[in-house]
């Protein structure tokens, strides 16, 4: 049986020394084996040590960290004690790595073919002619169209998905026994992600390579892995066959996590997990998950559980009370249905809005009017009711954030009107709006690290809108800040903290508090949960919903994550290339018949369930600019009906449930095709 094991991690501990000289562990006593031909998913939140573990598996320890104990055995030699010369022979040839951001991992000024050739020269003994053959073979294997032309291109001429494929091809150049993938699909669009995962699955089967797939995304892990390792603050808390872990997790963390992930099939907000993962070095005895656990008792507080192997379940678990979960059935998700009192009153109306990024130079206007006629965003007509949550969804480049910027007054529209409260016209230029117009619309950004000034305390951050709009001072100001902090469930003592001392979820709460401080009517949420850890996401969504019910605020919610959108929104608008494809109540948008693009998006959603496989309907081509004539989706549509799609802008068609679809195919026909 020993020969089956390709990599053996034994009692591995990695850590760093703090300023005070304390040893702080990033990985605590990790032991696991990777078998030949299997795909192991390592899943955990940021800071759980999953990437450190993957890097250690190729004998690399990040700068500033050092090995405290244990070993990583590959072919019965310890990689962590090996000289760099010997490591060079293993890296690339025996163990290859696929990085998260292929765009940054490829050298920008070398052609793709040359870069793969380099990898081949290093990791194989082929001669020049054989190498050339091998390059197109590799590019073929990762399903890049016309390998010969791709080989002559530079990395920036490829899309993100194609770049990631090239990275896979380079990793395969040395025919490695073990492939390490560090969040390989995280930066990609949903549809591209599904395609890349499918490719990885194919390669695993085809070449028999073992894979270690590191990700925070249980949905992606579910699609590729045979076995899953769940990590929490530097420890393995659960390890076992993929299906068992996703269907019947016996560790409270995984159990809670699966309960808190929004799913496509469920409308409404899932239960959230309290708290957040502790920082390394902050756990003083006891179980590291104790604070957040629903099953914990006094024993958990004082003693830390050991990883226990359960023979009948073929699973290892680190929990005293796992038995309570063993007998439970499959994870049943309970959701809080959202109750929005949306009134008939219109609060914001976009009519015929188009936005252009083209520079309006005099010469351009005289000689070249094309850029003008084909703006990035065109023909946006949406009316937003008071108190509702409307979501704009689409992949990157769909114009969803662009529209948000124009509503906020940060980007000038080319044409069209933005009307507030049925009567007031809002200029899309900040300078032409009066302070009250600015107050009624507030923004919450994607990444709280960027949206909070690192040199301001929480108090100063929240005080800004209060001072600006209401001129509050002294005690009154302080009282208001404390009130707001309480509303986002943060204690008074957070006032003197700096953003860097807060966890991701806490930072986003501060950003939410700042937005609500202005007492706005409309809050624009730009991918507010996508920078957050999975276990924190549901909590922030629940908070947003609670605040909305209390204040009757209207949300315009931008997201690429269809499951999150499903959970929180009343209505959904699907965008492609800056044009609306489908607008309707979210229950109906998520049901067929839908616009062919919505169909593609829905098919590509990854769910943390091994039984639900993504459906790949269209190719994952990336279009640089919208087509000049006809339907915006013509380039990728699998249901194209003919010339009409290329020449005429499709009409809006209404389904019985009030869902508007913009397609040339009649609704009934669409319904037939999609069932």
């Amino acid at each position, binding site marked *: 049986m020993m020969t089956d094991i390709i990599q053996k991690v034994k009692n591995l501990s990695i850590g760093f020394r*703090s300023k005070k000289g304390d040893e702080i562990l990033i990985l605590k006593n990790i032991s696991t084996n990777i078998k030949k031909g299997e795909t192991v998913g390592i899943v955990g939140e940021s800071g759980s040590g999953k990437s450190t573990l993957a890097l250690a598996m190729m004998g690399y320890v990040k700068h500033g960290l050092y090995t405290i104990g244990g070993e990583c055995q590959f072919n019965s030699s310890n990689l962590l004690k090996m000289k760099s010369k010997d490591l060079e022979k293993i890296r690339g040839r025996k163990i290859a790595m696929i990085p998260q951001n292929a765009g940054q991992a490829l050298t920008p000024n070398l052609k793709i073919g040359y870069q793969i050739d380099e990898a081949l020269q290093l990791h194989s003994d082929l001669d020049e002619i054989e190498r050339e053959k091998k390059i197109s073979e590799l590019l073929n294997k990762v399903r890049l169209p016309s390998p010969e032309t791709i080989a002559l291109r530079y990395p920036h001429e490829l899309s993100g998905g194609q770049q990631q494929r090239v990275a896979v091809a380079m990793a395969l150049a040395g025919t490695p026994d073990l492939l390490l993938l560090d969040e390989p699909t995280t930066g990609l669009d949903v549809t591209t992600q599904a395609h890349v995962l499918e490719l990885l699955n194919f390669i695993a089967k085809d070449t028999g390579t073992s894979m270690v797939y590191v990700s925070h995304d249980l949905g992606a892990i579910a699609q590729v892995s045979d076995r899953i390792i769940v990590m929490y603050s530097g420890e393995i808390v659960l390890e076992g066959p993929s299906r068992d872990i996703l269907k019947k997790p016996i560790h409270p963390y995984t159990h809670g996590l699966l309960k808190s992930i929004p799913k496509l099939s469920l409308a409404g907000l899932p239960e959230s997990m309290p*708290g957040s993962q502790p920082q390394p070095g902050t756990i003083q005895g006891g179980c590291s998950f104790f604070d957040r656990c629903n099953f914990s008792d006094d024993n958990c507080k004082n003693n830390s559980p050991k990883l226990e192997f359960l023979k009948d379940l073929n699973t290892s678990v680190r929990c005293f009370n796992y038995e309570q979960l063993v007998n439970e059935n499959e994870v049943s998700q309970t959701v809080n249905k959202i109750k929005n009192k949306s009134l008939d009153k219109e609060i914001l109306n976009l009519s015929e809005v188009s936005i252009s990024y083209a520079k309006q130079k005099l010469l351009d206007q005289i000689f070249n009017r094309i850029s003008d006629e084909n703006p990035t965003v065109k023909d946006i007509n949406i009316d937003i009711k008071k108190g509702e949550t409307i979501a704009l969804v689409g992949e990157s480049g769909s114009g969803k954030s662009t529209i948000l910027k124009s509503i906020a007054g940060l980007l000038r529209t080319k044409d069209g009107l933005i009307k507030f409260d049925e009567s007031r016209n809002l200029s899309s230029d900040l300078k032409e709006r009066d302070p009250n117009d600015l107050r009624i619309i507030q923004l919450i950004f994607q990444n709280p690290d960027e949206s909070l000034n690192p040199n301001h305390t929480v108090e100063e951050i929240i005080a*800004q809108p209060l001072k*600006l709009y209401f001129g509050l001072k002294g005690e009154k100001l302080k009282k208001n800040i404390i009130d707001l902090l309480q509303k986002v469930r943060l204690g008074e003592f957070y006032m003197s903290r700096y953003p860097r001392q807060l966890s991701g979820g806490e930072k986003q709460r501060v950003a939410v508090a700042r937005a609500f401080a202005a007492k706005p009517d409309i809050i624009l949420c730009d991918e507010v949960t996508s920078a957050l850890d999975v276990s924190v996401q549901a909590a922030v969504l629940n908070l947003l919903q609670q605040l909305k019910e209390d204040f009757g605020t209207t949300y315009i919610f931008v997201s690429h994550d269809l499951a999150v959108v499903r959970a929180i929104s009343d209505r959904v608008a699907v965008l492609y290339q800056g044009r609306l494809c489908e607008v309707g109540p979210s229950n109906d948008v998520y049901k067929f018949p839908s616009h062919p693009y919505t169909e593609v998006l829905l098919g590509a959603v990854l769910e943390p369930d091994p039984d639900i496989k993504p459906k790949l309907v269209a190719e994952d081509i990336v279009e640089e600019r919208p087509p000049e004539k006809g339907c915006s989706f013509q380039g990728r549509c699998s249901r194209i009906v003919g010339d009409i799609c290329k020449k005429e802008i499709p009409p809006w068609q209404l389904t019985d449930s009030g869902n508007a679809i913009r397609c040339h195919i009649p609704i009934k026909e669409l319904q037939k095709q999609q069932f």
Partner: protein
Amino acid sequence: MKVDNIYKEEKKSAFAKLSEIIITMASRPSGLIGLSILVFHIILAFISPYIAPHDFKAIDPTLMLQAPSAEYWFGTDDLGRDVFTRTILGGRTALTITFFGSLIALLWGGLLGIFCGLVGGKIDDVVMRIVDAFLSIPWILAMLLIVSLLGTSTEVLIPALGFFYGKGIVRVARAATHDVIAKDFIVSARARGHSNFSIIWNEIIPNVRDAILVEGAMRWSWMLLGFSSLSFLGFGVSPPTPDWGLMISNARGLMSFAYWAVIAPIVGLSSLIIGINLTADAFAKALGIDRSTKAPV
């Protein structure tokens, strides 16, 4: 929640922050050396008039070019004046003028740089081309012109030096502003409708302050060298006021047989410049800006 003290850090007063920075600076050998040299020079500048053993302008032809002795520690110069007295007094003018000069450079360079970085567009283009144009003029020529037109008084030298050494700071401040300007907290402040002034004061300055201060400290040492060059050429401090640049210039012809008259001011000047440089570097490291790896501009 269990939160350990290593992640907990309360808001500190400016004084506490400063003393912490100085302690960090002094914990490195190079920082400690730099700080001690600088502090030594500053103390010397304050107390030198009271401890000077002789009159700095007492000319005595009988004592011309005497070698160092118990009475005249660093010897005497060609007019029989005590070199030790003149050396310890010689840094005062240079230190004061360049200190205020760099403050002016910091102020106008920093503010203009931040402003250009924030507004961008045409204004930025025009201002930066003007700054570039000034950068292309050899500063010493321009300084000579100003000094010969307006005289060598302190009121002329401080703003003139401040102007010429502020140009470089404009670039650094603009680059540092560009780093933060795209961040969402600035977009957020804009969307709320804060004025440009409020954005600069509340959002940008706290984030670029460190980079500009470090640059200013470096400019100080350069300005000191520049000012001494002016004195050396006879356009800085007028005799008989003791000044290192002037002393070097006067005594250099006699270097072959009265080296002491030249070496003392040279040691004074170069130790001060090295001291400021080392301090600025340690300051940058203590603030977390590593000039060796991440130079702005």
